[in-house]
């Protein structure tokens, strides 16, 4: 191997090294600029990463991450054999896939429709209004859901009764949970989700449309043959990111909407980790469950990215 390497004279090596050293010395203040962030990442990201080892140990607070005793895969075996294991998987995947199936296409459709309307007061009004819910806190969203869906005083049930039906106990009936979760998310995020597609659509060359119009293409045809192909790379990237996140959905909202009556549908891995780890203080067991979730997520992300790379040339890396 050594012969293949082009000969570098010792002088150049020293020259490069000197240049590098000079660059470091000259810019020493830039290292001060970045120092707080480096410390942040070490303390709040890398030390917890080191702490993952407690998933294979029996964590005792006084002994710390390193001092606690190794137990191997005990926590994982316990989790896999528990009666709630499949329920957790089913709920986690069920909510995510439902959310993806409904929540992924809607911003695309809305963006394509908005793109057809020329810039006007009307268009800007629709955008301003549909972006707004993005800024409402998850606690207020949960409060709205609970208030609107109340079987006795909620406005939704008032409408249902007006149409002559029986009121529905949305929040205490497990079979409604996923729908409530998904559609409240649609209400909150569809508008905001259009921004990235609208920005991709603004990159379409107007001449393409002009040529198509002269050739007699209808609006619908131009959407299908010009606009949609333009946003396919954006769609692919977002789909990969969504699929790679399928085990880690908006658990903060689920936690707020969860109650003992709907728990059979709302108990997902993330809320389970919170409950067993922080409320029941079974740190090691909860860390093991969290690690399992993270590993599945990473595996999914890598797989989906691989498939995307093979089939469409668009991928995250």
């Amino acid at each position, binding site marked *: 191997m050594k012969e293949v390497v082009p000969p570098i004279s010792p002088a150049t090596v020293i020259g490069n090294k000197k240049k590098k050293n000079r*660059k*470091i010395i*000259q*810019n020493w203040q*830039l*290292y001060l*600029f*970045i120092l*707080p*962030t480096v410390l*942040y*990442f070490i303390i*709040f990201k890398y*030390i*917890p990463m*080191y*702490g*993952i080892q*407690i998933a294979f140990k029996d964590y005792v*607070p006084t002994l710390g*991450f390193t001092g606690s005793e190794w137990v191997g895969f005990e926590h994982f075996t316990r989790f896999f054999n528990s009666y709630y294991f499949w329920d957790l998987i089913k709920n986690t995947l069920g909510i995510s896939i439902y959310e993806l199936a409904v929540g992924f296409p809607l911003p695309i459709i*809305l963006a394509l*429709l908005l793109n*057809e*309307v*020329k810039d006007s007061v009307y268009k800007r009004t*629709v955008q301003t*209004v*549909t*972006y707004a819910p993005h*800024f*409402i*806190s*998850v*606690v*207020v969203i949960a*409060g709205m859901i*609970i*208030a*609107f869906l*109340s079987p*006795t*005083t909620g*406005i939704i*049930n*008032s*409408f249902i009764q007006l149409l002559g039906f029986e009121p529905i106990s949305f929040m205490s009936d497990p079979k409604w949970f996923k729908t409530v979760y998904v559609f409240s998310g649609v209400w909150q995020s569809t508008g905001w989700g259009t*921004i990235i597609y609208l*920005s991709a659509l603004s990159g379409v060359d107007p001449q393409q449309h002009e040529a198509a*119009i002269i050739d007699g293409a*209808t*609006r619908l045809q131009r959407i299908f043959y010009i606009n949609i192909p333009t946003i396919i790379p*954006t769609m692919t990237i977002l789909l990969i990111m969504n699929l790679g996140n399928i085990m880690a959905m908006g658990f903060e909202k689920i936690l707020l909407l969860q109650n003992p009556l709907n728990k059979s549908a709302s108990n997902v891995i993330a809320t389970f980790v*919170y409950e067993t780890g*922080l409320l029941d203080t079974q*740190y090691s067991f*909860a*860390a093991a469950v*969290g690690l399992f979730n993270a590993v599945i997520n990473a595996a999914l*992300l890598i797989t989906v990215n691989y498939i995307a790379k093979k089939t469409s040339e668009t991928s995250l890396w």
Partner: protein
Amino acid sequence: MDINKINETKADKMFMGFVYFALTFALIVVLYPLIYIISASISDPAAVNSGEMWLWPKNVTLEGYRIILQNDAIWRGYIMTIFYTAFGTMINLVFTIPTAYALSRKDFYGRRIFTIMFVLTMFIDGGLIPTYLVVRNLGLIDTVWAMVLPNAVALWNIIITRVYFQSTIPRGLEEAATIDGASNFKLFIKIILPLSAPIIAVMALFYGVGHWNSYFNALIYLSDRSLYPLQLVLREILVLQEMSSNNLNMSGQVAEFLHSQQQLAAIIKYGVMIVSTLPIIAVYPFLQKYFVKGVMIGSIKE
């Protein structure tokens, strides 16, 4: 004349009809709950509970707001949230802007290693439990630091800011300054910062809204009620109270507040939704433009 109009067929006109119909539908679906909340917060509670009030306020009363404004827990939460938002955002900016600037400099030796070190955490993460234990071992539980340090910087925002610096700061600027003998520190304060007002505004809004709206860190790191941010107080009023009538987690103050006002409870809830979201609504017109800009910068491939 608009080229779209030249060959507009009947099918096109019908299609545009559908477009306007669909957009109006989306507009109404999003707008209706927002109007309803505002109307409900100032209506007669009986009309709200019975469903009689469904769009515009009925028998306008400000009783709900009067009770909200008299509540100590809400005031306290409000003050704490303002503090966490101001202090937290300040820390965020001090971490994010200089870091992003250093990473944007081509002559910064080690930028690749630092970038890899940061980006790696997007894929591998300690997870909830180890992170919690680190925060606890540092003695941050039940201190204001728990509300600002664990989220001192967000990687995504560093990336956006770096892209901004790379695309707006002229290349020759640093060299010229270095030749003039200005240190990096001086260069940053005197030249870079004044040029980066737009990105500082975007970042302040991104982080600020995040602090204002977050509840989860407070939920896991704070048990001292006097430190509760507004969102945790809201959680008690809007969520816990509704979920079970005798919740042990609720403070006496909040429980009493809702209990003694059984009749008014509904409109109080809508009122607190408004009161807590008001500051964000107030800056929303500016917010929207900057946020959209931020999302756009973020979508540029680095």
